């Protein structure tokens, strides 16, 4: 592939990339995709030019692809222009498989931090110049890089589904019976799990070395015991020390299994490092084993609070490859579902932010009541409240049942606007909320763009970037709505912007519910259990409730995706958690995390 691409003339570069040609002619190779392959030695310079001169100030997605047949690995970058909008600019770097090294772009876009660590962790591509290149989703005792094509999981059966053992001779046999437990435990060489201490924990336990435990189980500072008085007495004068505190992994404020290792000076945070991956299930590898349609219900389980949006993003990416467009009525149904999902997600986020603030469950339950009514609608249409699995390539799974639109109209026109106003009236002016939220966890617009933060967190920092407006997908160009923006970038603005967005969603819903054709097709073409997807690559993205949700799908023309990557907003937004929290009080870190609104199913994938 590399040889073939190298033979193509550089003159083929088009669009914004043409400007790069004069400057970096030799370092650029047009590929068999809409973008460019950049040589290693020039990668940082080209990226800097793309950022500064072409205006692509935001690195949205960074991922790797393992081309095992070519013995080559590829890093794929998608950069965005947050001011002008439009489609992402794609560029790639290639590196040999057995010695995969690419220069790190963390200096150009600090938002590359977690994404480069993820690619190192899962694909084993080293990023030269990354200051903290260690595993992020897997633990240190994990052998290998699971997204490489030659890596096999513990209960490996076959490279791709459907498995041959299921039919026609499918005598049931559990995977646990087929593979004995001990056979699937693998550690890297020189790794002893019995003496293992996690890297992040090491700092915590380092501090404990300064203490003895006395016969009553009390911690005694070593110096008190060793020092002159020897009776376990503390020194008279007060000594301060930095203290490392683990919030989580099991902690009510972390909204799942998630850990923040916080270094404290008194009550003030001097350093914060998020530790994640407790819910990691290698979703992308599962996705590459699955057939295209089989991935749809799996996307529900990413951000399990907004499964319809996840369906939407994945359907868009595959539809780009298949070149199908859903019929009119299906498009309206999709938009209605996606906007209802946004309302669901935001009332939930507001409710639980208030829980984090200590308003124990009263606001949360008022919010959940409305969410419950929307979930009833989802259940009536798709069959399930949360795991909707409702979108299909070129349409939706089934038509709306009788009476659905009436109930939806009643909610959208009469009930929800009133209830959102009530929620606003109930909370926004509350002095305690304002005192806690205003000014805490501030993130400037520049920083938000720098750290690749997306969604409400980005827009609360004054950056009016919304995929529905920047690169309208589906039929969003037909609706009148405003991109909600707030300018302070603090927790309070992130709360307010969610109310604003609910109101904008209601506006879109009201227009959609008026315009939707009463009857019509809901599926383009014939529904197939085995979708035929032509070879190619596509990046489909939607404005999910938590930010830009992107699906990067590479097809090789077979029944299963060759590469399936998710640009998860919950994961990338956490890049900014550390910078936002430094200098804040420990008590506020809980609401700062709450205001980002993460779902661990999507963070850890």
């Amino acid at each position, binding site marked *: 592939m590399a040889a073939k691409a190298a033979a193509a003339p550089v003159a083929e570069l088009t669009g914004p990339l043409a400007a790069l040609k004069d400057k970096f002619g030799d370092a650029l190779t047009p590929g068999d995709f809409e973008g460019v392959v950049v040589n290693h030695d020039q990668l940082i310079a080209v990226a800097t030019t793309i950022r500064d001169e072409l205006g692509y100030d935001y690195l949205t997605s960074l991922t790797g692809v393992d081309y095992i047949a070519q013995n080559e690995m590829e890093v794929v970058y998608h950069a965005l222009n947050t001011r002008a909008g439009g489609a992402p600019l794609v560029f790639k770097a290639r590196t040999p498989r057995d010695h995969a090294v690419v220069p790190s772009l963390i200096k150009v876009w600090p938002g590359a931090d977690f994404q480069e660590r993820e690619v190192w962790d899962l694909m084993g591509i080293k990023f030269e110049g990354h200051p903290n290149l260690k595993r992020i989703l897997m633990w240190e005792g994990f052998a290998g890089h699971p997204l490489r094509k030659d890596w096999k999981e513990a209960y490996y059966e076959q490279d791709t*589904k*459907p*498995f041959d*053992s*299921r*039919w*026609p*001779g*499918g*005598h*049931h046999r*559990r995977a646990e019976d087929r593979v004995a437990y001990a056979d699937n435990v693998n550690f890297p060489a020189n790794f002893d799990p019995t003496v293992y201490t996690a890297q992040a924990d090491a700092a915590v336990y380092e501090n404990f070395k300064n203490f003895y435990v006395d016969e009553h189980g009390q911690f005694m500072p070593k110096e008190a015991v060793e020092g002159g008085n020897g009776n376990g007495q503390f020194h008279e004068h007060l000594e301060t020390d930095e203290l490392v505190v683990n919030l989580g992994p099991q902690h009510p404020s972390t909204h799942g299994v998630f850990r923040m290792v916080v270094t404290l000076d008194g009550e003030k945070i001097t350093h914060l490092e998020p530790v994640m991956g407790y819910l990691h299930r290698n979703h992308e590898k599962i996705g590459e084993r*699955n*057939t295209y*349609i*089989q*991935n*749809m*219900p*799996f996307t529900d389980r990413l951000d399990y609070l907004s499964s319809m949006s996840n369906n939407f993003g994945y359907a868009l990416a595959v539809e780009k490859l298949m070149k199908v467009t859903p019929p009119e009525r299906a498009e309206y149904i999709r938009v209605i579902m996606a906007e209802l999902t946004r309302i669901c997600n935001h009332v939930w986020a507001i409710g639980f932010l208030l829980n984090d603030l200590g308003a124990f469950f*009263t606001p949360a339950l*008022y919010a959940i*009541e409305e969410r*419950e*009514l929307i979930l*009833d609608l989802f*259940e*009536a*249409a*798709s*069959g*399930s409240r949360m*795991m909707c*699995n409702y979108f299909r390539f070129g349409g939706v*799974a*089934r038509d709306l*049942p*009788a009476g659905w639109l009436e*109930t939806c109209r*009643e*909610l959208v026109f*009469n*009930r929800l606007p009133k209830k959102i106003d*009530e929620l606003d*009236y*109930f*909370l*926004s*002016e*509350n*002095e*305690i*909320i*304002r005192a806690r939220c205003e000014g805490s966890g501030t993130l400037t617009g520049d920083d938000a763009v720098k750290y690749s933060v997306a969604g409400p967190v980005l827009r609360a920092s004054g950056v009016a970037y919304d995929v529905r407006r920047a690169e309208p997908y589906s039929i969003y160009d037909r609706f009148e709505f405003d991109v909600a923006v707030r300018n302070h970038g603090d927790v309070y603005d992130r709360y307010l912007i969610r109310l604003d967005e609910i109101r904008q969603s209601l506006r879109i819903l009201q227009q959609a519910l008026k315009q939707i054709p009463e009857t019509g097709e809901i599926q383009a073409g014939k*529904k197939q*259990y*085995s979708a035929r997807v032509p070879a190619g690559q596509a990046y489909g993205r939607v404005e999910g409730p938590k930010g830009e949700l992107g699906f990067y799908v590479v097809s090789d023309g077979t029944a299963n995706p060759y590469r399936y990557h998710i640009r998860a907003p919950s994961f990338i937004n956490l890049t900014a958690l550390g910078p936002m929290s430094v200098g804040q009080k420990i008590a506020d870190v809980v609401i700062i995390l709450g205001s980002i609104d993460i779902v661990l199913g999507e963070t850890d994938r």
Partner: protein
Amino acid sequence: MYGSGLIKGMGVTLKHFVESYAEDLKYVFRGGRYNDKYIAVRQGPKAKGIFTVQYPEEKLPVPENFRYIPFLVFDTQKNEDKCTSCGICAKVCPPQCIWIVRTNDPKTNRPIPQPAEFYIDASICMSCSLCAEFCPFDAIKMDHDYELSSFERFNTLVFDKARLTKPDTYHAAIHPTDWARELQDQAEAARKDAEKAAAAAAKKAAADAAAAAKLAEAAKPTDEAKPAA
């Protein structure tokens, strides 16, 4: 005034508190609010007052599209399984929890359209309903029974064919719209078959007539030839 925001908020809570009692009072002479009769009102888009449902004493009715672990439809009219063991459900199943053994004719060793064994591992099934959606024979449908907890997780949760099979009357009861569509499809198919049969019969009749005519034609010369002979 400092504190007015707090007081406003308290007002909302108070309103909700009072409303829950006021709403209850409306139903005092109608047999009380907390029974199956008013569950749709309590949970509907105009609901006010207490929203909670006291599961398991009360249960929310599930919509027709509700989906849980699949079941196999048994055709009570023809007294046979609808499943033909074509394997599409097993191929489309995302967690690969469907296992099918196809029946082979003991004499010719050719496949017979009937499953010999059919398993669904309910501990793996994600209730996505792709199997029901893509079944060309309406033989596998999603159930409404969601209370499946058991004390043992290995054998009781692997559902075999006997456990999975349910009569089509049950399917008709829980999926009235789908069932009506099926009956319509059947009627349509029957009509088409009848048309086809009629067309074939007409064709056959025409062919017979033609053949008879031909025979007659063929016979004629002999008749004519006879006198000549």
